[in-house]
């Protein structure tokens, strides 16, 4: 059991992934590992058939550290089934850029997940940046999530979603 309510592509979903500590043994279940481990054990991981994902961490890295660099994932993109972006505080918006780089520059098509301090007023923005999986507080129901996503009926600018933005749409 997890302590969050997982929503994927706008629907409640069962958690099928496990976050693995760096010293825990790899199992045959789908596992989310750290970037460090991904880099260290890339070859061994490639041999395995179980899908694996990575978490891009934003804290616990030293006070002035910004968080891990999304572009370090470049060599591994094709092998990753999931990337979780850690938001250490809802007001830390660095992960939004990471999400867009993954979707638009690396054309990542797997699950892109927001974990950490992920609150009501950020979901719609995250969604527009290409995040399609959300770890919500357990007491949040799907209807609330959908309301939040629909609060703004449009957008001015393109991002990682289908919405081209009014500046472009009006011109068509």
């Amino acid at each position: 059991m997890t302590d969050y309510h997982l929503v994927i592509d706008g629907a409640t979903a069962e958690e099928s992934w496990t976050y693995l500590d760096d010293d825990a043994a790899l199992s045959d279940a789908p596992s989310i590992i750290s970037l460090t481990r991904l880099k260290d054990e890339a070859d061994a991981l490639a041999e395995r058939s179980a899908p694996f994902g990575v978490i891009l961490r934003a804290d616990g890295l030293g006070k002035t550290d910004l968080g891990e660099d999304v572009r370090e994932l470049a060599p591994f993109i094709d092998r990753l089934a999931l990337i979780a972006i850690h938001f250490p505080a809802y007001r830390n918006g660095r992960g939004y850029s990471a999400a867009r780089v993954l979707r638009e520059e690396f054309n990542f098509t797997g699950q892109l997940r927001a974990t950490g301090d992920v609150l009501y007023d950020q979901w719609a923005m995250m969604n527009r940046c290409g995040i399609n999986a959300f770890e919500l507080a357990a007491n949040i129901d799907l209807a609330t999530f959908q309301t939040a996503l629909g609060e703004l009926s449009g957008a001015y600018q393109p991002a990682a979603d289908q919405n081209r933005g009014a500046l472009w749409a009006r011109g068509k």
Partner: protein
Amino acid sequence: MYRYDEFDHKLVADRVNQFRGQVERRVSGALSEDQFKPLRLMNGVYLQLHAYMLRVAIPYGTLRSEQMQMLAHIARKYDRGYGHFTTRQNIQYNWPALDKIPDLLDELACVEMHAIQTSGNCIRNVTSDQYAGAIEGEAEDPRIVSEIIRQWSTFHPEFTYLPRKFKIAVTAHKNDRAAIKLHDIGIVVKQNDAGEIGYEVHVGGGQGRTPFVAKKMNDFVPKAKLLAYLEAVMRVYNMLGRRDNSYKARIKILVHETGEEEMRRMVEEEFAKIDASEMLTVPQTEIDRISAYFAPPAFETLPADSQAFTQAQADDADFARFVRANVVAHKQDGYAIVNISLKPIGGVPGDATDAQMDVIADLAERFSHDEVRVTHEQNLVLPHVKLDDVKTVYDALAAHDLATANLGLISDQIACPGLDYCNLANARSIPLAQEISERFSDLDRQYDIGELKIKISGCINACGHHHVGHIGILGVDKKGTEFYQISLGGAADENAAIGQITGRAFTEEDIVDAIETVVTTYTDLRADGERFIDTYNRLGMAPFKERLYD
């Protein structure tokens, strides 16, 4: 002027409803104050010393008269009968009740106004030259690209939780009235030798406790590429800007710590990636649609001179003074740009009452093609007045204490709210500005002194732009008493510079005398035709220091 289409209207209405929900969740306790804070900030709601404050955006400083009327109405209905025009083309209301703010925002939305992104760590209200479209010599009306930037930056999903606030200013004239080099991004609209419009982009300016003049990142970004270029700057900043210390979080610190060259390299690299998709190239039809809103108003064909205007100056010395200080040449023959000073002698810089706003709205409608402008120096402008009408306009302004003839003179000061409103202040700013204004109240003396910009901040956050005052005054705290430090030689125009501190700070009793000493040092030492800033730049700090401290 830009008019909302259905889409713009709907989005602003959605935003008000969204904020109404957020206020309800705050009131019910579903949101903690800590969780509510960034949300209210993104809607212009600050918590001040005494109450909530609301900051309403005046994008690129342009208002229609019905909008000015609405600002007056809001001052009457939700505040104590006045509003405060700020240094970033916003208006602030100091006393609205939180639970009434959604209603207030609904009313604003009726005239296509909002408080979106006037605070918070997002891209703030875009500012521009108050003389846009009225002054001779612009490459293009800077409001066209400002409106495009406004739309692109509104609810930008990637840049709503930046390391720190982010301010963009635009000018299209060789004389910079928008202080673009003191912004996170400053843009100069210009024409290249081939006659194409493009943008010179400056990055990393700012004030606060570590002031910097922006560095020129790119000399000419082609018109079609601007949003891709801006998105590149923003992404580099969002990924690499510091989040561990809010005083080191502005892009100016990133540029400074990374170095200009390296910053440029990173921006160019990001730009190449973003631009590859051409996703951010705005369609020409949309640029044309927006440009059409800023087409010149229907000016009449008039002679360059007006007999009535000349005669009125000969007949009325006060009017002649007003013309000399506050009236600026218009690009269209027979028209003038009329500045309205919000710095009456002894008044609060930037404040206007509801009645004054109504008068200005009415004058704009009758005499200025329905337009009012707001300046970063906290004044207002009627941009398109026929020379024949200037005297009528002046008389109406004078009847409401709006005809102070001091534009650009020593009593036309910028002052932050200071200790009277602000919980971060070390010292009072407004009362000091009032004292200085009283001391130099004699207009003839002010003309003799000439152009001189005094800017006052109550603490190092520099909301009052003291770093870039020809004379800057900064409130400092010494064991609980108010002291003021003076700096000289700052400038916020095309020759932007950060002022130098003269030395030891002055007490509340001594500060006005010290300012007088600085001024007389200048008048004693100036060469023919030199402004204060020219004399300072020629002679440096030494003579001023000597007179102040010896």
